[in-house]
Structures are given as C-alpha cells and as structure tokens.
C-alpha cells in the first residue's frame, strides 16, 4: 500500500545502504513561491524511480536540485549518506550524477562523437578513443548509433539516444531523465525504456520524470507523486497502484475526470467519448477544404506535399505526426501567415488561397497556434489587450480605444473560459501556461461567425486541470457545429478526442483512420514512416 496523506506528510525513510541519493526535508523557494516544500525522498541503486506530477508540481525543481542547477533553501541532500551540497552541475557531474534535460543540448552540425567529446575531453580530443567507447556502450545497451553521423541528420529518437550516451559515457551512479519520452514515437519509447531498465540493473539509480502512466507500468520500481511541491504519494508497487497514483496527482476522484482526459492518461478506454464519434454523420457542406496544398520553403524544400483534407461542421479531425513533418507549415497556411505554393484553401464557401490573415479571420477561421508565445499572444501586453488582439475586433470610437468596453468584455470572457488572473489588466506573461492558453482559446472561440477552429498542440505544457478544460472547450465548440482541426504530437490526446485521424509524414498525409484506441499501433507505424 502507499502511504498517501493529504497533508503531505509521510513516514520518514531511515537511511538505507541502498540509498544512492536522498532528500531530507528539502525546501526550495523562488521568490515567495515554494517550488518544493519539505520533500523527503530516497533514490536507490538498481531502481528506476519515477517522479509523477502535473506541470509545475516541482518535479523538474527536484531534478535540478540534485544536479546542482539550483541550491536548496532548507533541508539536506545526501549522497551515499554523506551531506551533498553541489554549487553547480560541475560538482554533481564529478560526484557521478548525470542528467538528460527536457530539451536537447546537442550541436546539430557536429558528429555524434564530436558531441560526446564536447565538454568532456581535456587537452587533446582522441576521436577514435571516444568512438571506441561509444561502440562499446551501444553494443552493451543495444543502441544503434553511427559514431560519425551528423547529429542534425538523426531522428528525434536517435538524438535522445545521443543525449543518454552522453551521460552513460561518464559512467554515472545516478542518472536523471527529465521527460525523455515526451517527443518520441511509441517504438522509440519502448527502446528507450529498455535502455533505462538495463542501466538500472547494472546498479545505477535512475530518476525518471514522466507523466505517462504506461511508462510507469512498464519500467518503474518505485513512484513518487509530487503535487504543489510536496510528496503526495509513494508506491513500491506502481503497477498495481496506478489509479491511486493518478488520484494523488490530480487530487480528485477519477470518475469526475473528463473521459477524454482519462483516456489520454491511459486510465480508461474512453467508451463514453467514442459513443459520440458514431453520432456524427454528414452535416451538409464541408466547413474546411484543404485542396492539394503544397508548401515550399525559402530554399525550395517541399514542406507540405499535396495535402488534401476536408472537415465537416462539428467534426474533430486530428493530425498526428512526429514534429517537423509539416504540422507547423499546415498551421501557418491555415492562419493565413504562409501562402501555399500550390493548392487551395476554402472555408465555408470562400476561397481564401493567398489571402491575408484578416481574411481568414473574417471567414470564421479561429487559430490556436502551436506556439502561443510566438504567434498566439503578446506577453508584454495586458490580458485584456491580448483578448482583443484582432484588428477587426478592437472596439474603437473615432479611432480611440474604448477601454471600458474592452475591460468589461474581457471580464466576461475570463468568467466564461475560466481564465484565472488577478484582473484583466495584468501582464499576459504573468499568467500560468494554462491560463494563457485558455485566454487564447477564449479569443479564438468567441470570434464572430466561427466556422473552423485550428488547434495546434493546444495542451502542450499545460497541467492536468487545464488540459481537461481545453478538451472541454474544444468539444463544446464541436457541439456548436464548429469544425475542428487538432494538430498534436500526443497520439493519445488525438485518439481521445478526434473523430478522424490523419497521419502526416514528411509533408504528406500517409494515412487516415477513425479515432479509436485500437488504431494506435497502425498510426504509430505510419508516424514512423512505415506504410500500413
């Protein structure tokens, strides 16, 4: 059983010889915000210890403390039972702690070996020696890496392998992996988890941050759930405690969870959601027609290759694919910021090919861009200003802004879409990611005459509560008859809410199928470029 306790207290582990790294009452604050409070947890040799929790729960902070990026404000970290106070990553590396960060830190233009040498070699860099070491590691862990391949030419999965080999080459005693599977394909995830398993078996303590429950089932020996900077639950038999762990993570009964959410977390089959799928029949003319759209970039490389797709009112179509296979270009084409080199885009009965963004907006196209900071919103402006970030919707009189009208409408939108902020005039950048995304959704979904909503990676970086809210909003729009195009790299998310799924690979749609969990394997294969 797990010692779940709402107050966050738990039986303090006595030091055990197997503990490689342990936290004792550790607290870390950023300003007045306590990222971690009084955390006690031990990581043992030979075990894979998963850290589970929502975004912002404190998982990454915990890793960063162990790796020396941050220093604890209170409490103690012990390494093999002795107090350990790293003043920077250098100290941690010397002590045998290695970390794979959430984002790649590789030089694309250099070979695999050169990337390994980077920051490791002193004096003369013996390429051949490093290549030999790499060879030895790859055979030991069953990895497939060519030592002299250019990193920029590798797939995302192979790059993640390079990151891990970069750690393993130091023969670490503790390996920290911060969401290493977030960007990987199902097959690649499996391979990576096998490597992780093997590293642990060899006696290393592995700390794996994840929010994918399937991974916990497969690989975890021990799970710690972090919520609001505290240890919310621990389990030594994670395979049996999945539901309890999720409950501890979101602190709510599972029954109250949005079914699509539950499904994308891997808890239930989502039968409730799928019943809807059958209900949708043809509802008249297509809301969106993408007709043989081709996009070439400035260097002439084809980014989208004759993509054809139609969506009916009320339908949710998901586009899945590994990032960089044309999703961004498709999003830009549909936002009107990137005119296609060939093909047509028709919203309702208006041909919008080559028209400016405002024409797309006027035709009823709402866009939630994949990068809300770059395109969706302006962080330096206020929340109200961002809710009215649309030329045709800024209320003016004689060219002057009607600030009071804007403010009142903003308050209404905030209430309707549950955007939580201390007021409508706060800086947009001060909102949490979830509230920023809800504000962008609020603006796009209240667009007059909304016919089509493009939601690109709408839940990226959001916590469970916000993800659920976003799903609810998307579904509500679909029920109003809005056609929805959902572009996402999270296969489970798409399977959970889309009626139809199209797979994008190297700019082409390589397959289409109904959005059902049973299609998972097939879609995964298509995403990896295997023809079905």
């Amino acid at each position, binding site marked *: 059983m797990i010692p779940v306790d709402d107050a966050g207290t738990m039986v303090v582990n006595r030091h055990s010889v197997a503990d490689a790294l342990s936290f004792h009452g550790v607290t870390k604050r950023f300003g007045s915000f306590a990222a971690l409070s009084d955390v006690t947890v031990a990581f043992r040799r030979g075990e894979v210890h998963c850290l589970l929790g929502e975004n912002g729960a404190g998982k990454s902070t915990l890793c960063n403390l162990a790796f020396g990026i941050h220093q604890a404000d209170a409490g103690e970290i012990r390494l093999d039972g002795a107090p350990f106070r790293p003043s920077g990553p250098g100290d941690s590396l010397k002590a045998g702690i290695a970390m794979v960060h959430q984002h790649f830190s590789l030089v694309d233009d250099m070979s695999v070996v050169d990337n390994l040498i980077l920051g490791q070699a002193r004096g003369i860099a013996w390429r051949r020696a490093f290549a030999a070491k790499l060879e030895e590691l790859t055979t030991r862990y069953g990895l497939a890496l060519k030592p002299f391949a250019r990193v920029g030419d590798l797939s995302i999965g192979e790059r993640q392998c390079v990151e891990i080999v970069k750690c393993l080459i130091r023969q670490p005693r503790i390996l920290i992996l911060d969401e290493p599977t977030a960007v990987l394909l199902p097959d690649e995830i499996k391979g990576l988890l096998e490597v992780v398993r093997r590293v642990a078996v060899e006696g290393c303590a592995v700390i794996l941050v994840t929010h994918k429950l399937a991974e916990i089932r497969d690989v975890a020996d021990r799970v710690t759930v972090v919520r609001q900077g505290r240890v919310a639950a621990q389990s030594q038999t994670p395979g049996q405690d999945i539901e309890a762990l999720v409950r501890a993570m979101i602190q709510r009964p599972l029954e109250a969870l949005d079914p699509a959410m539950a499904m994308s977390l891997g808890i239930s089959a989502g039968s409730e959601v799928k019943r809807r799928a059958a209900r949708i029949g043809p509802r008249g003319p297509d809301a969106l027609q993408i007709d043989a759209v081709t996009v070439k970039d400035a260097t002439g490389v084809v980014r989208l290759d004759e993509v054809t797709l139609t969506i009916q009112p009320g339908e949710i179509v998901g586009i899945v694919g590994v990032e960089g296979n044309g999703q961004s270009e498709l999003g830009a084409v549909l936002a009107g*910021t990137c005119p296609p080199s060939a093909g047509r885009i028709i919203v309702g009965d208006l041909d919008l090919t080559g028209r400016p963004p405002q024409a797309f907006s006027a035709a009823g196209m709402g866009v939630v861009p994949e990068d809300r900071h770059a395109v*969706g919103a302006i962080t330096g402006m206020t929340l109200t200003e961002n809710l009215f970030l649309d030329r045709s919707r800024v209320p003016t009189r004689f060219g002057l802004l009607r600030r009071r009208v804007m403010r009142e409408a903003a308050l209404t939108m905030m209430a309707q879409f549950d955007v939580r902020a201390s007021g409508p005039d706060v800086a947009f950048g001060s909102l949490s990611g979830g509230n920023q995304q809800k504000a962008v959704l609020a603006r796009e979904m209240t667009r007059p005459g909304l016919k089509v909503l493009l939601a690109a990676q709408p839940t990226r970086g959001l916590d469970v509560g916000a993800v659920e809210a976003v799903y609810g909003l998307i579904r509500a729009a679909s029920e109003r008859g809005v056609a929805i195009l959902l572009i996402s790299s999270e296969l489970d998310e798409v399977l959970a809410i889309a009626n139809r799924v199209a797979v994008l690979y190297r700019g082409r749609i390589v397959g289409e199928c109904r959005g059902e969990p049973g299609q998972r394997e097939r879609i995964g294969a298509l995403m990896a470029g295997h023809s079905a």
Partner: protein
Amino acid sequence: MTISVPPSARQRTRLWPSGLVVPLGVTIPVASVLASFAVGLLLVVLMGAPLGQALSSFLDGAFGSSYAISVSLNRAAVYSLVGLGFIFANRANLTNVGAEGQIAVGGIAATAVALVPGIADLPLGLSFVVPTLAAMLAGAIWGGIAGVLKARIGTSEVISTLLLSFIAVWLVYWCVQSEHLLRQPMTSAATLPESLPIPETTQLPLVTGDYGAPANLGLPLAFFLAIAVAVVLGYSRFGFQLKAVGFNPLAARRAGFSTRQTIVVAFLVAGAFGGLAGAVMLLGDQYSLKAGFSSGYGYDGLVVGLLARGSTVGVIATALLFGFLRSGGISMEMGAGVPAALVLVIQGLIVVSVSGAAFWLDRRQPAKE
C-alpha cells in the same frame, strides 16, 4: 551601435512609509541627474576651476536673463520634437537614429519654400505654416525611405537612418555652396556660403513678440504634440497596433495588423517630427541655412528620446533639462574657463546611469511564477 529600450517599464516603488508612491520612472532619472551633477561639480573642482564662479556662470547662461531662458527653451523645443518622434517609432520597436538628417532636410525644405516668391505674402500665418509643412514632408520622406527599406527588405533601420543622416548633412553643404541651389548671390569674395535670410513673415512667431526674449512657438507646439502623441500611443487603435507590432510582429500579423504598413507609418511620423524640428530651428531661430545647420541637435534629441523610456512627459522633462544644461555649459566655458565638453560628460553620465539603473531594475524584477 545598437540601442533598444523596452517600450514600457512602468513600475512603482514605495519610497517612504507614509504611503506616498513615486513611480520608479521618476525617481531613477532624478537620482541619476543629481548624481551626475555631483560628479560634474567634482570634476570642476578637480580641474582647479573656481567652483563658485563656474556655478554662477552656468546659472547665468541657463537662467540669467530672459534672452538666456528663451535660447534654452528653443533648444528644449527642438529636443522635445525629436524625442517625441523617437518614442513614437520606438513604440513599434524601431530605433530612429536619423533625426539629424531629418532635421537637415527639414531645414533645406523650409528655407527653399520660405524663399519662394509669394510665400511670404500668404495670409493667416500660412507664410510660416507652409514652409513648416514642407519641412515635415521632407523629414517624413527621409524617414519613410528607412521605413520602406526596413519593411521591404529588412534593412536595419539603425544603419539606414544613420547613413541617411550623413547624406542629408552633406546635402545641406551642397545647397549652401551652390548658387544654383540655395546659396545667396555672390556679390564679393567674402560672401558667406549660406542662404539668403528668410523673409520676416515666414519666421516662426515669437511668444513674446520681442527679439530680446526670442522664445518661439516651438515649445508650445511641442507641448501640444506631446499630448497628441500620448493620446495616440496610449488610447488609439494605431497605438495598439504600434505596440503589438513592436512586441511581437508575428502575433500582430496574425491579428490582422500589417507589419509593413506599421513600420512605414511609424517612420513617416518620426521623420515628420524630425523635419518639424528642422523647421523650428530654421524658421524660429537661425533664419538662414548655413553649413552645419543641424549641428548635433538630432543626436541630442535621440538621447532625450532614449532617456524618456517611452513617456511623453519624460521627453519634455529631459528636453528641458538638456536645453538648460547646454546653454549653461556654453556660458560656463566662457565665464569660468571650464570646457563646455564637461556638459557632455554630465550628459553621458546621465545616460549611463539611467540606462544602467533600468537594466538593473529589469533584471531585479521578481521571477514569474
């Protein structure tokens, strides 16, 4: 040279427990100015000049007579106009360092139009309004070139406006050297390379109507335009557009605002302010075009715009400060033998300390959650 100023840095701090709150945007410049003055005085002492005499001649030059005050105010008016143009374009994250050239072409246009026969006889003040409008048009074109280059092919506006300034400054030389252009008829070998004096009716009216206190309409005009700029930037849709494009061109474009149009219009306006400054200098103060006409006013005005950090009140305040500072400095050189360059040192110190303080404050801002 890259200059960038965050368009708005509105922060408030508590200074004393009575609950009186003073914006940091005020306390920091004031403290910087005072500190810079202190260093300046220290330098005067170190140079061995008599402190009392230096101070008295400084004050004399800045405030000593209605003539001195008028000259300082005229100077401040030019600085204000340039500064207003700067913060306008800067709201769209554009850095107009070309005011010097915009002043120069404004001066050329104002002179040329004022000397056109018949202009001087226009009724209802049109005799000085028309040359002024011509100067604004010339400045707007000069700024607009940089705007179009930036919007069309992405040329850095810092480079293009600077280079355009050099061209404009030499255009002034050409105009006053060539009899075919604006040089006054050569009657003897001693004829100076400058234009004919402009007719009296084309001169900008003096507030007092008295050449003993020659404060012209420039400063009232600058006050009025400061209010206009504040309203446009803060309360109009175009201000919203400028800000959106300045912060994030991609998001602004997606929102239906044309970034190209915004950039070009911002530069047309900034250029027009520069041209207007040139008109005020020529029609209100110098009355004839000479080589070296713009003489650094554009660069001083640029500093005024930078220090104002996006605030129109800041522009006026800084312009007044610099106006009096310059006049006082010149008098100090003559009266106490302290080089007028000392004023430049003080100006430099103010720039460094204000921007340094701003940098420090921005970094000190509490981390986001």
